[in-house]
Protein backbone atom coordinates (compact mmCIF):
# COMPACT_ATOMS: atom_id res chain seq x y z
CA UNK A 1 0.00 0.00 0.00
CA UNK A 2 0.97 3.61 0.42
CA UNK A 3 4.10 4.29 2.46
CA UNK A 4 2.95 7.64 3.84
CA UNK A 5 -0.43 6.50 5.13
CA UNK A 6 -2.30 9.74 5.92
CA UNK A 7 -4.81 10.05 8.77
CA UNK A 8 -8.33 8.94 7.81
CA UNK A 9 -10.14 11.71 6.00
CA UNK A 10 -13.69 12.56 6.93
CA UNK A 11 -15.58 14.82 4.59
CA UNK A 12 -18.69 16.81 5.28
CA UNK A 13 -21.58 14.32 4.93
CA UNK A 14 -22.90 16.24 1.95
CA UNK A 15 -19.54 16.30 0.19
CA UNK A 16 -19.06 12.60 0.90
CA UNK A 17 -22.47 11.72 -0.55
CA UNK A 18 -21.75 13.82 -3.60
CA UNK A 19 -18.40 12.10 -4.14
CA UNK A 20 -19.99 8.68 -3.72
CA UNK A 21 -22.73 9.50 -6.22
CA UNK A 22 -20.07 10.58 -8.72
CA UNK A 23 -17.91 7.49 -8.24
CA UNK A 24 -20.95 5.24 -8.55
CA UNK A 25 -21.22 6.36 -12.16
CA UNK A 26 -17.83 4.85 -12.76
CA UNK A 27 -14.27 6.03 -12.73
CA UNK A 28 -13.56 8.63 -15.44
CA UNK A 29 -11.41 7.34 -18.31
CA UNK A 30 -8.81 10.08 -18.15
CA UNK A 31 -5.15 9.88 -17.07
CA UNK A 32 -5.87 11.43 -13.65
CA UNK A 33 -9.35 10.11 -12.75
CA UNK A 34 -9.19 11.18 -9.08
CA UNK A 35 -8.21 14.66 -10.12
CA UNK A 36 -11.21 14.78 -12.47
CA UNK A 37 -13.57 13.72 -9.68
CA UNK A 38 -11.94 16.16 -7.29
CA UNK A 39 -12.57 19.05 -9.67
CA UNK A 40 -16.23 18.10 -9.96
CA UNK A 41 -16.55 18.12 -6.15
CA UNK A 42 -14.39 21.16 -5.50
CA UNK A 43 -11.97 19.10 -3.39
CA UNK A 44 -8.23 18.47 -3.63
CA UNK A 45 -7.23 15.28 -5.47
CA UNK A 46 -5.44 14.07 -2.37
CA UNK A 47 -8.61 14.33 -0.30
CA UNK A 48 -10.60 12.31 -2.80
CA UNK A 49 -7.96 9.57 -2.87
CA UNK A 50 -7.73 9.52 0.93
CA UNK A 51 -11.51 9.18 1.14
CA UNK A 52 -11.44 6.28 -1.31
CA UNK A 53 -8.64 4.67 0.71
CA UNK A 54 -10.78 4.94 3.83
CA UNK A 55 -13.78 3.42 2.04
CA UNK A 56 -11.61 0.50 1.01
CA UNK A 57 -10.21 0.09 4.54
CA UNK A 58 -13.71 0.16 6.00
CA UNK A 59 -14.88 -2.36 3.43
CA UNK A 60 -17.45 -0.08 1.82
CA UNK A 61 -15.60 -0.51 -1.44
CA UNK A 62 -14.35 -4.02 -2.09
CA UNK A 63 -12.02 -3.06 -4.91
CA UNK A 64 -11.67 -0.85 -7.96
CA UNK A 65 -12.44 -3.06 -10.85
CA UNK A 66 -14.88 -3.89 -13.55
CA UNK A 67 -17.98 -5.90 -14.24
CA UNK A 68 -17.83 -8.04 -17.35
CA UNK A 69 -21.10 -8.69 -19.13
CA UNK A 70 -20.46 -12.34 -19.76
CA UNK A 71 -23.32 -12.78 -22.18
CA UNK A 72 -21.75 -10.26 -24.53
CA UNK A 73 -18.71 -12.56 -24.70
CA UNK A 74 -20.73 -15.64 -25.47
CA UNK A 75 -20.47 -16.95 -21.91
CA UNK A 76 -24.14 -17.83 -21.90
CA UNK A 77 -24.14 -21.11 -19.99
CA UNK A 78 -24.62 -19.93 -16.46
CA UNK A 79 -25.33 -22.78 -14.08
CA UNK A 80 -26.47 -22.37 -10.52
CA UNK A 81 -25.54 -25.64 -8.84
CA UNK A 82 -27.36 -26.18 -5.57
CA UNK A 83 -26.60 -28.83 -2.95
CA UNK A 84 -28.50 -30.26 -0.02
CA UNK A 85 -25.68 -30.61 2.50
CA UNK A 86 -26.02 -31.69 6.14
CA UNK A 87 -25.70 -28.54 8.25
CA UNK A 88 -22.61 -29.83 10.02
CA UNK A 89 -20.78 -30.27 6.70
CA UNK A 90 -21.88 -27.22 4.76
CA UNK A 91 -19.06 -24.86 5.78
CA UNK A 92 -16.41 -27.42 4.91
CA UNK A 93 -17.94 -28.26 1.53
CA UNK A 94 -18.43 -24.55 0.80
CA UNK A 95 -14.72 -23.99 1.31
CA UNK A 96 -13.83 -26.94 -0.89
CA UNK A 97 -16.14 -25.92 -3.72
CA UNK A 98 -15.02 -22.28 -3.64
CA UNK A 99 -11.45 -23.48 -4.17
CA UNK A 100 -12.45 -25.11 -7.49
CA UNK A 101 -11.22 -22.84 -10.28
CA UNK A 102 -14.47 -23.06 -12.30
CA UNK A 103 -16.64 -22.01 -9.37
CA UNK A 104 -17.19 -18.24 -9.59
CA UNK A 105 -19.44 -17.72 -6.54
CA UNK A 106 -20.26 -19.87 -3.52
CA UNK A 107 -22.76 -19.10 -0.75
CA UNK A 108 -24.62 -20.82 2.04
CA UNK A 109 -28.30 -19.86 2.02
CA UNK A 110 -31.34 -21.02 4.00
CA UNK A 111 -33.43 -24.00 2.92
CA UNK A 112 -37.08 -23.27 2.21
CA UNK A 113 -38.75 -26.56 3.03
CA UNK A 114 -40.62 -28.38 1.72
CA UNK A 115 -40.14 -26.77 -1.71
CA UNK A 116 -36.44 -26.03 -1.55
CA UNK A 117 -34.10 -28.34 0.40
CA UNK A 118 -30.82 -26.85 -0.95
CA UNK A 119 -28.52 -24.84 1.33
CA UNK A 120 -25.29 -24.45 -0.66
CA UNK A 121 -25.24 -22.49 -3.92
CA UNK A 122 -22.41 -22.17 -6.38
CA UNK A 123 -22.14 -20.69 -9.86
CA UNK A 124 -20.29 -22.13 -12.81
CA UNK A 125 -20.03 -20.08 -16.00
CA UNK A 126 -19.02 -21.29 -19.42
CA UNK A 127 -19.51 -20.89 -23.13
CA UNK A 128 -21.36 -24.18 -23.55
CA UNK A 129 -23.58 -26.33 -21.36
CA UNK A 130 -21.64 -29.48 -22.12
CA UNK A 131 -18.44 -27.88 -20.82
CA UNK A 132 -20.09 -26.65 -17.67
CA UNK A 133 -21.61 -30.08 -17.02
CA UNK A 134 -18.27 -31.77 -17.70
CA UNK A 135 -16.59 -29.43 -15.23
CA UNK A 136 -19.24 -30.24 -12.66
CA UNK A 137 -18.77 -33.97 -13.23
CA UNK A 138 -15.07 -33.54 -12.55
CA UNK A 139 -15.81 -31.75 -9.30
CA UNK A 140 -18.25 -34.48 -8.22
CA UNK A 141 -15.69 -37.11 -9.07
CA UNK A 142 -12.76 -35.30 -7.50
CA UNK A 143 -14.58 -34.42 -4.28
CA UNK A 144 -16.48 -37.73 -4.05
CA UNK A 145 -19.86 -36.00 -4.04
CA UNK A 146 -21.79 -38.68 -5.93
CA UNK A 147 -24.16 -39.18 -3.01
CA UNK A 148 -24.70 -35.48 -2.23
CA UNK A 149 -28.15 -34.43 -3.53
CA UNK A 150 -27.83 -31.56 -5.98
CA UNK A 151 -29.53 -29.85 -8.89
CA UNK A 152 -28.21 -27.83 -11.82
CA UNK A 153 -30.31 -24.80 -12.74
CA UNK A 154 -29.10 -23.35 -16.03
CA UNK A 155 -30.31 -19.88 -16.86
CA UNK A 156 -32.50 -19.81 -19.94
CA UNK A 157 -32.74 -16.10 -20.34
CA UNK A 158 -31.49 -12.95 -18.64
CA UNK A 159 -34.42 -10.63 -18.15
CA UNK A 160 -32.23 -8.12 -16.49
CA UNK A 161 -28.48 -8.18 -16.10
CA UNK A 162 -27.05 -5.11 -14.51
CA UNK A 163 -25.68 -3.88 -11.25
CA UNK A 164 -28.31 -2.41 -9.03
CA UNK A 165 -27.81 0.98 -7.52
CA UNK A 166 -26.22 -0.46 -4.42
CA UNK A 167 -24.28 -3.46 -5.57
CA UNK A 168 -22.66 -4.71 -8.69
CA UNK A 169 -21.21 -8.04 -7.90
CA UNK A 170 -23.66 -10.47 -6.40
CA UNK A 171 -25.18 -12.75 -8.98
CA UNK A 172 -27.87 -15.35 -8.46
Amino acid at each position, binding site marked *: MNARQPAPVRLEPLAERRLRALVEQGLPLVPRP*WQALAEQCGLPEETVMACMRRWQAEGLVKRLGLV*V*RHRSLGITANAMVVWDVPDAEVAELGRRLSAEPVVTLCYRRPRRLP*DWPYNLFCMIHGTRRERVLAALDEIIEGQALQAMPHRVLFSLKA*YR*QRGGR*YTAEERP
Partner: protein
Amino acid sequence: MIAMPARQSVSATTPAAELDAADRRLINRLQDGLPLVEAPYAAVAAELELSEGELLYRLERLLEAGVLSRFGPMYHAERLGGGLTLAALAVPEADFERVSEAVNAFPEVAHNYRREHRLNMWFVLATETPEGIAEVVEAIEAATGLAVFNMPKQEEFHVRLHLPV
Protein backbone atom coordinates in the same frame (compact mmCIF):
# COMPACT_ATOMS: atom_id res chain seq x y z
CA MET B 1 -29.35 -35.07 -14.14
CA ILE B 2 -31.70 -32.42 -15.38
CA ALA B 3 -33.83 -32.55 -18.49
CA MET B 4 -32.51 -30.41 -21.31
CA PRO B 5 -35.12 -28.29 -23.00
CA ALA B 6 -34.66 -26.73 -26.40
CA ARG B 7 -31.94 -24.09 -26.33
CA GLN B 8 -33.73 -21.42 -28.34
CA SER B 9 -33.53 -18.65 -25.73
CA VAL B 10 -29.84 -19.15 -25.14
CA SER B 11 -28.73 -19.38 -28.75
CA ALA B 12 -30.93 -16.43 -29.72
CA THR B 13 -28.77 -13.99 -27.79
CA THR B 14 -26.64 -11.51 -29.70
CA PRO B 15 -23.39 -12.84 -31.14
CA ALA B 16 -20.35 -12.71 -28.93
CA ALA B 17 -18.31 -9.52 -29.07
CA GLU B 18 -14.86 -9.85 -30.61
CA LEU B 19 -11.92 -9.40 -28.29
CA ASP B 20 -8.31 -9.47 -29.30
CA ALA B 21 -5.51 -10.80 -27.13
CA ALA B 22 -4.74 -7.39 -25.63
CA ASP B 23 -8.41 -6.85 -24.70
CA ARG B 24 -8.43 -10.20 -22.93
CA ARG B 25 -5.25 -9.47 -21.03
CA LEU B 26 -6.64 -6.08 -20.05
CA ILE B 27 -9.96 -7.47 -18.79
CA ASN B 28 -8.29 -10.28 -16.90
CA ARG B 29 -5.83 -7.88 -15.33
CA LEU B 30 -8.52 -5.39 -14.32
CA GLN B 31 -10.70 -8.07 -12.76
CA ASP B 32 -8.02 -8.11 -10.09
CA GLY B 33 -8.56 -4.42 -9.46
CA LEU B 34 -7.01 -1.07 -10.24
CA PRO B 35 -4.34 0.43 -7.94
CA LEU B 36 -5.36 3.48 -5.94
CA VAL B 37 -2.73 5.85 -7.29
CA GLU B 38 -2.85 9.22 -9.05
CA ALA B 39 -2.40 7.72 -12.52
CA PRO B 40 -3.86 4.20 -12.23
CA TYR B 41 -4.28 3.61 -15.96
CA ALA B 42 -0.66 4.41 -16.66
CA ALA B 43 0.39 1.96 -13.94
CA VAL B 44 -1.66 -0.89 -15.41
CA ALA B 45 -0.65 0.04 -18.97
CA ALA B 46 3.01 -0.29 -17.98
CA GLU B 47 2.35 -3.76 -16.57
CA LEU B 48 0.67 -4.84 -19.78
CA GLU B 49 3.19 -3.13 -22.05
CA LEU B 50 0.56 -0.88 -23.58
CA SER B 51 0.58 2.89 -23.74
CA GLU B 52 -1.78 4.70 -21.39
CA GLY B 53 -3.64 6.14 -24.38
CA GLU B 54 -4.19 2.74 -25.92
CA LEU B 55 -5.41 1.30 -22.65
CA LEU B 56 -7.92 4.13 -22.21
CA TYR B 57 -9.07 3.74 -25.80
CA ARG B 58 -9.59 0.00 -25.35
CA LEU B 59 -11.52 0.47 -22.12
CA GLU B 60 -13.78 3.04 -23.74
CA ARG B 61 -14.47 0.69 -26.63
CA LEU B 62 -15.24 -2.26 -24.32
CA LEU B 63 -17.69 -0.12 -22.36
CA GLU B 64 -19.35 1.12 -25.54
CA ALA B 65 -19.61 -2.42 -26.92
CA GLY B 66 -21.29 -3.49 -23.69
CA VAL B 67 -18.60 -6.02 -22.83
CA LEU B 68 -18.05 -4.13 -19.58
CA SER B 69 -21.10 -2.84 -17.80
CA ARG B 70 -19.29 -0.93 -15.15
CA PHE B 71 -15.88 0.30 -14.28
CA GLY B 72 -14.90 1.72 -10.89
CA PRO B 73 -15.46 0.95 -7.23
CA MET B 74 -17.37 -2.20 -6.37
CA TYR B 75 -19.42 -1.54 -3.30
CA HIS B 76 -20.08 -3.92 -0.50
CA ALA B 77 -23.86 -3.51 -0.25
CA GLU B 78 -24.27 -4.67 3.33
CA ARG B 79 -21.46 -2.48 4.63
CA LEU B 80 -22.98 0.47 2.85
CA GLY B 81 -25.93 -0.17 5.12
CA GLY B 82 -28.00 -1.74 2.39
CA GLY B 83 -29.88 -5.01 2.11
CA LEU B 84 -29.14 -7.76 -0.39
CA THR B 85 -30.79 -11.07 -1.10
CA LEU B 86 -31.47 -13.75 -3.68
CA ALA B 87 -35.13 -14.50 -4.22
CA ALA B 88 -37.13 -16.90 -6.37
CA LEU B 89 -40.67 -17.37 -7.61
CA ALA B 90 -42.54 -20.37 -8.99
CA VAL B 91 -44.24 -18.70 -11.93
CA PRO B 92 -46.98 -20.48 -13.91
CA GLU B 93 -45.69 -20.80 -17.49
CA ALA B 94 -48.62 -18.89 -19.01
CA ASP B 95 -47.96 -15.99 -16.67
CA PHE B 96 -44.22 -15.71 -17.14
CA GLU B 97 -44.11 -12.52 -19.23
CA ARG B 98 -46.57 -10.65 -17.03
CA VAL B 99 -44.74 -11.62 -13.86
CA SER B 100 -41.29 -10.78 -15.22
CA GLU B 101 -42.53 -7.33 -16.20
CA ALA B 102 -44.05 -6.83 -12.76
CA VAL B 103 -40.85 -7.93 -11.02
CA ASN B 104 -38.50 -5.93 -13.25
CA ALA B 105 -40.56 -2.81 -12.63
CA PHE B 106 -39.01 -2.70 -9.15
CA PRO B 107 -35.78 -0.67 -9.19
CA GLU B 108 -34.43 -2.90 -6.38
CA VAL B 109 -34.25 -5.88 -8.77
CA ALA B 110 -30.62 -6.09 -9.86
CA HIS B 111 -30.57 -9.33 -11.89
CA ASN B 112 -33.36 -11.54 -13.05
CA TYR B 113 -32.83 -14.93 -14.66
CA ARG B 114 -35.20 -17.57 -15.89
CA ARG B 115 -33.98 -20.97 -14.66
CA GLU B 116 -34.90 -24.60 -15.15
CA HIS B 117 -36.82 -25.58 -12.05
CA ARG B 118 -40.30 -25.25 -10.61
CA LEU B 119 -38.77 -22.15 -9.00
CA ASN B 120 -38.20 -20.65 -12.41
CA MET B 121 -37.57 -16.96 -11.77
CA TRP B 122 -34.48 -15.94 -9.77
CA PHE B 123 -33.54 -12.38 -8.98
CA VAL B 124 -31.26 -10.36 -6.71
CA LEU B 125 -32.78 -7.62 -4.58
CA ALA B 126 -30.62 -4.73 -3.41
CA THR B 127 -32.15 -2.12 -1.13
CA GLU B 128 -30.87 1.00 0.56
CA THR B 129 -31.55 -0.40 4.06
CA PRO B 130 -31.75 -3.97 5.43
CA GLU B 131 -35.42 -3.43 6.31
CA GLY B 132 -36.06 -2.56 2.68
CA ILE B 133 -35.80 -6.24 1.68
CA ALA B 134 -38.92 -7.29 3.61
CA GLU B 135 -40.81 -4.33 2.18
CA VAL B 136 -39.90 -5.13 -1.42
CA VAL B 137 -40.62 -8.84 -0.92
CA GLU B 138 -44.07 -7.94 0.33
CA ALA B 139 -44.63 -5.53 -2.54
CA ILE B 140 -43.55 -8.15 -5.10
CA GLU B 141 -45.91 -10.69 -3.56
CA ALA B 142 -48.73 -8.16 -3.79
CA ALA B 143 -47.88 -7.26 -7.39
CA THR B 144 -47.54 -10.85 -8.61
CA GLY B 145 -49.87 -12.81 -6.33
CA LEU B 146 -47.01 -15.31 -5.82
CA ALA B 147 -45.01 -16.29 -2.74
CA VAL B 148 -41.42 -15.01 -2.80
CA PHE B 149 -38.76 -17.49 -1.65
CA ASN B 150 -36.28 -15.23 0.10
CA MET B 151 -32.80 -16.77 0.42
CA PRO B 152 -30.31 -14.25 1.81
CA LYS B 153 -26.72 -15.40 2.00
CA GLN B 154 -25.71 -16.80 5.39
CA GLU B 155 -22.07 -17.34 4.60
CA GLU B 156 -19.85 -16.46 1.67
CA PHE B 157 -17.07 -18.81 0.61
CA HIS B 158 -14.49 -16.71 -1.11
CA VAL B 159 -13.50 -17.61 -4.62
CA ARG B 160 -10.78 -16.02 -6.65
CA LEU B 161 -13.17 -13.55 -8.19
CA HIS B 162 -11.89 -14.04 -11.63
CA LEU B 163 -13.51 -15.46 -14.69
CA PRO B 164 -10.89 -15.53 -17.42
CA VAL B 165 -12.15 -14.28 -20.78
